[in-house]
């Protein structure tokens, strides 16, 4: 009986020692973990709209301008200055809007990069700003309808606007 009590006391001592040796996470580590979790959620959301879409810009001088929208989810290092947190990889939508003029195979297109992209998963809204020297900003405000992006476009600097409908290649 005495022997059992000794063993129990020894086990208790070891457990206490082990608990003391486990370091409590720092605030910095907690913040980093939180950012990484948020990034994972964001990555998952953006993954819903990433892909290659094809369709037309309607209303460009009464002509259907064939375009291809290519969106990829890329992790971009983003630090919070002054927060004392290491930069975390933040998922962002990047890509380009390709204006097709003839054969894509022989390079008869011009690409305009996506300057900024915001995706709101709950309402399924995607706002893109495509930049090019000819029209400065081309704003696309679209809603995600299954495998389609449907909405409006406008280029305020050249006074042009219209509608667009793009379909994801390969469907959903």
């Amino acid at each position, binding site marked *: 009986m005495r022997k059992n009590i000794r063993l129990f006391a020894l086990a208790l001592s070891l457990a206490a020692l082990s608990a003391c040796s486990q370091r409590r996470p720092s605030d910095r580590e907690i913040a980093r973990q939180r950012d990484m979790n948020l990034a994972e959620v964001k990555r998952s959301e953006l993954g819903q709209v990433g892909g290659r879409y094809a369709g037309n810009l309607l209303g*460009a001088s009464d002509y259907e*301008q064939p375009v291809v929208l290519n969106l990829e989810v890329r992790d971009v290092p983003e630090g919070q200055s002054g927060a004392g947190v290491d930069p975390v990889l933040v998922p962002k939508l990047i890509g380009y809007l390709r*204006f097709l003029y003839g054969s894509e195979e*022989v390079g008869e297109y*011009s690409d305009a990069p996506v300057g900024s992209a915001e995706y709101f998963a709950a309402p399924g809204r995607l706002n893109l700003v495509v930049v090019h020297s000819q029209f400065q900003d081309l704003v696309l405000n679209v809603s995600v309808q299954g495998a389609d992006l449907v909405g409006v476009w406008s280029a305020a600097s*050249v006074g042009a606007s219209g509608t667009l409908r793009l379909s994801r290649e390969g469907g959903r």
Partner: protein
Amino acid sequence: MNFFTRYLPSLALGAAFLATPVAGAQTESIQGTYRTVLNHEPRGAEPTKYHQFATLTIRTVNIGGTLKISASVRMIFGDWSSNEFLTYEYPDVPMNLLTRQLSLRADGNDVSFIGTLRNGAITGEWFSSSAGRVGRFAAQKSQVPAIERGSVLVKTVTGHYRGTLVNTHPESNLPERLSLSLVTTQTPAEGGTVELRISGNLRFYLGDFGSGEFVETPIAEAKFNFYNRYLTLKTAQHGITLKGVLSPDGDFVADVFADGLGRVGTIELESVQ
């Protein structure tokens, strides 16, 4: 299971597939040679519409995701088989991404084109540096664009002209019948370009046309503006100069000058070949 319940899902699926835009569906290349009709709209008191054939060659290259276009234009005088033409090079042809408007202009070129590329065709307006806006143009790869009704083809300068001379100077007694033969040749010029050179003969008939009684002199110097159609010819002998307008349909109305006498008469010739 009736017809609708059995086949409607398949039909709906097929319709949805057809309605789905496909990337790269517009596969016809824009580069290549377009057969072009250049319209000369009536100007001033001249009511006649003229047209002229041309070939427009578009070249494309993609540099880092940006389409670069260059072009060359061959303006033909006469029909498609004519070897009387002027060639212009446009090394950089900007295109508006949204409107598809193309601008063919280059320093040193007498003609420029502003057009829109749609559905495999380029249509727009063309301009000359000497006359301003000349008219509209249309270019297509697959076929020759439609020619306006009543429009007359711009003839070649090369040809045989025949007509009459009216002496207006008391000391001038030039023969009243004359013929003119003109031939154009392509001659390499500075900068790798090609010039159209004009040569020919002027023949004064003392008797009827076709008789052997004539005096002939080569054309020593010929200058022709292809845009305002102003033609100046100086003979190698007898010191005669003809200055006037050669109309697109081949009428040459000009003043006649003689060295030492000045303006001595007028001529009216028409193309007979």
